[in-house]
C-alpha cells in the first residue's frame, strides 16, 4: 500500500517534470523570428527568471502553510512581499538614492530581508501563534494588511522627491515583461543556498504537520524551526519580488494543487511537486498566452483571475466544513 502510493507519486512527479521541460523548450524555441542570436538569450533570461520565481514562491508557500497550519493563507496574500516594496520606498524616502543602503546592493537586499523577517515574525506572534482567531478573520486581516502596505507605498512614493522617485521606480517596477535580468544570477545562487539549508528542515516540517504539542513531544524544537522557516520564506519572497515583482495568487494555486495531486505529507515531495506546477503555470501559461491565444496580456493578470476564482472556491469549501 505504502509502496503503491510512493510509486504513484514518483510517476506523477515525472509527468510534471516532463510537462515543465516541454513548456520550457517550447517557450525557448517556438517561432523565433528574426535574429536567433538576439531573441534566444532574451528568452533564456525570461525562462530563468520565471523558473526561479516559480520555485521560490512554491517553496516559501508550502513551508509557510505548514508552519501556520492552514492551506488558504499564503505569504503573498498577507503582504509579506509588499513589505519588500515598503522597505525599498522607506529607504529612498528617508535616506535618498545616494545612501549606502541603496548603492550597496547586498546591504540593500539584506535590509529588506531583515525587515521582512521581522514583519513575518510579528504577524506570526500576534495572529497565528495566539491560536484564538478563526481562519476567516486571519484571511481578511491579512488581505487588509496587504492593502495597507500597498497604499503606504503609494503614499510615500507620491510625496518622495521626483528625482529620487525615478531612481526608485527603476529599482522597484519589475514584472514578467520587465525582468531585472542583472539579478538572475544572484537569485539563482540564493535559491540554491536556500534549498541546501532548507533540506535539513524537511523532516522536521513533516513532523510539524501533527500539530505543535505532538511535534514538541517528538523532540522537535518547534519555535526554532518556525523561526527558520519564516526567515527562509522571507528570503525567497524577497528574491522573487526583486526579480519580477509581486505575484499574489501563484503560491495559493500551486500549493493547493500540489496537496490535491500528490497524496503525501512529505515536504520534500510536496515542494518538488509545487515547484514543478509553478514552472508549468508560469512558463507554460505564458507560452499559451503568447502563442496559442495570441494575447498581449501578461501571465500575472491571468494568474490573478484564476487565482481569485480558485480562492473563492477554497473559501466556499472551507466554509462548508466549518459549519
Amino acid at each position, binding site marked *: 500500500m505504502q509502496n503503491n502510493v510512493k510509486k504513484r507519486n514518483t510517476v506523477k512527479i515525472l509527468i510534471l517534470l516532463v510537462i515543465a521541460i516541454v513548456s520550457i523548450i517550447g517557450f525557448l524555441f517556438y517561432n523565433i523570428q528574426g535574429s536567433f542570436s538576439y531573441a534566444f538569450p532574451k528568452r533564456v533570461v525570461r525562462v530563468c527568471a520565471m523558473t526561479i520565481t516559480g520555485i521560490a514562491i512554491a517553496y516559501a508557500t508550502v513551508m509557510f502553510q505548514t508552519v501556520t497550519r492552514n492551506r488558504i493563507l499564503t505569504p503573498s496574500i498577507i503582504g509579506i512581499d509588499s513589505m519588500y516594496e515598503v522597505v525599498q520606498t522607506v529607504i529612498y524616502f528617508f535616506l535618498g538614492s545616494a545612501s549606502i543602503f541603496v548603492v550597496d546592493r547586498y546591504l540593500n537586499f539584506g535590509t529588506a530581508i531583515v525587515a521582512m523577517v521581522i514583519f513575518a515574525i510579528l504577524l506570526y506572534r500576534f495572529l497565528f501563534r495566539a491560536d484564538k482567531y478563526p481562519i476567516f478573520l486571519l484571511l481578511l486581516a491579512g488581505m487588509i494588511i496587504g492593502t495597507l502596505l500597498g*497604499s503606504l507605498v503609494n503614499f510615500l512614493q507620491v510625496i518622495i522627491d521626483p528625482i529620487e522617485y525615478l531612481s526608485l521606480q527603476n529599482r522597484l517596477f519589475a514584472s514578467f515583461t520587465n525582468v531585472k535580468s542583472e539579478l538572475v544570477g544572484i537569485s539563482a545562487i540564493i535559491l540554491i543556498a536556500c534549498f541546501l539549508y532548507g533540506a535539513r528542515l524537511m523532516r522536521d516540517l513533516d513532523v510539524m504537520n501533527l500539530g505543535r504539542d505532538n511535534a514538541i513531544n517528538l523532540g522537535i524544537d518547534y519555535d526554532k524551526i518556525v523561526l527558520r522557516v519564516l526567515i527562509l520564506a522571507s528570503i525567497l519572497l524577497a528574491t522573487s519580488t526583486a526579480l519580477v515583482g509581486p505575484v499574489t495568487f501563484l503560491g495559493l494555486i500551486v500549493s493547493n494543487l500540489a496537496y490535491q495531486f500528490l497524496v503525501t505529507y512529505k515536504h520534500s515531495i510536496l515542494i518538488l511537486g509545487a515547484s514543478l506546477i509553478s514552472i508549468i503555470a508560469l512558463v507554460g501559461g505564458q507560452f499559451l498566452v503568447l502563442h496559442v491565444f495570441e494575447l498581449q496580456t501578461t501571465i500575472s493578470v491571468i494568474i490573478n483571475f484564476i487565482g481569485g476564482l480558485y480562492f473563492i472556491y477554497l473559501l466556499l469549501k472551507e466554509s462548508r466544513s466549518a459549519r
Partner: protein
Amino acid sequence: MKLKLWMLVTAAIVLSFVSLFIGAIDITPKDLLDFQSDEVEIFLASRLPRLMAIILTGAGMSIAGLIMQTLSRNKFVSPTTSGTLDAAKLGIVISMVFFTNVTYMEKIIFGFACALIGTFIFMRLLDRIKLKDVIFVPLIGIMFGNIISSISTFIGYEADVLQNVSSFFLGSFTLVVSGRYELLYVAVPAIILAYIFANKFMVAGMGEDFAKNLGLSYKTVLNIGLILIAIISTIVVLTVGSIPFLGLIVPNLVSLYLGDNLRKVIPHTVALGVVFLLACDIVSRIIVAPYEIPVNTTVAVIGSAIFLVMLFRGKAYAK
C-alpha cells in the same frame, strides 16, 4: 464618547473653510470682496467645486455603504468589499473600448449597468452562501472585486487602454473644476431617497420572509437599494475615481456610538463622511504643498488601518 450631530456639523463647516482657503495660490476671505480679481475666479472655478465634490462624495459613499450594510445585515459589506466599485470601473473600461469617442453619458450608462449587475450578483451570491459569517462575506466580496478588476486589466491590456484606465481611476479631487463635477449632485436625491426608505431598508434587512410578513414588497425595496448604491458608486468613480473604505468605515464608526436606528443614523453618517473625507483631503494637500497626494491614497492608508482595528476590536470574533 458620544458625538452630537452639531459637533460633526461644526467640524464640517470649519474644515470646509480650511479647504476653501488652502492651495497653491493664497486666497484670503478679503480677496473675495473684489469681484473682478483673479482670486474670485479661482475660488469659483476650482475651490468651491472641489469643496462641493468632496462633500457630495463623502456623503454619497457613506450612505451607499450604510444602505448595503443594512440590506445585507453585515457590518463589513460596502462598495469596496463587494466588488461594486470594481464593477463600475469595468463598465467604464468596456465603454472606452467599445466606443472610440466615448461620451460621458455612455460611460455612465455602462458603468451603472455593470455596477448594478455586479452588486446584484454579489447579493445573490450572499443568498446562496450558507455561512453568513460577518468576516466571511466581505472576504468573498473582496475576492469578487479582485476578479472583476483583473478582467478590467485584461481588457485594458488587449485594447491598449491600460494607461488610460489606471490614471482614470486614481481617486483625486485635483481635476475637479466647475463643469466637471456637477454630476455628483445626483447624490443629493439619492440621500433623500435613502432617508425616505430608511425604515423599509431596515425591514428588508431582516430577511425576505420576515419582510413579506410585515407586508413589505421585498423585491422592490431591495432593488431600490441596489439601484441607489450602483448610481452613487458609478458617479463617484466617474467623476473623482475610486475612494476605497469610505463606505465601510464611516457607517461603522457611527453605529459604534449611535446604534442602528437608520433614520437617526443617516444624518450622522452623512456628516461624519463629509468630515472624514474633508480631513483626508486637507492632509493630502498640506503634506507636499504646493503639490498634492491623490486623496484615495490617504483614505486607503487611514481607512485600512481603522478597518484593521475594527476587525480585532473586542473579543466578539475571537474563538
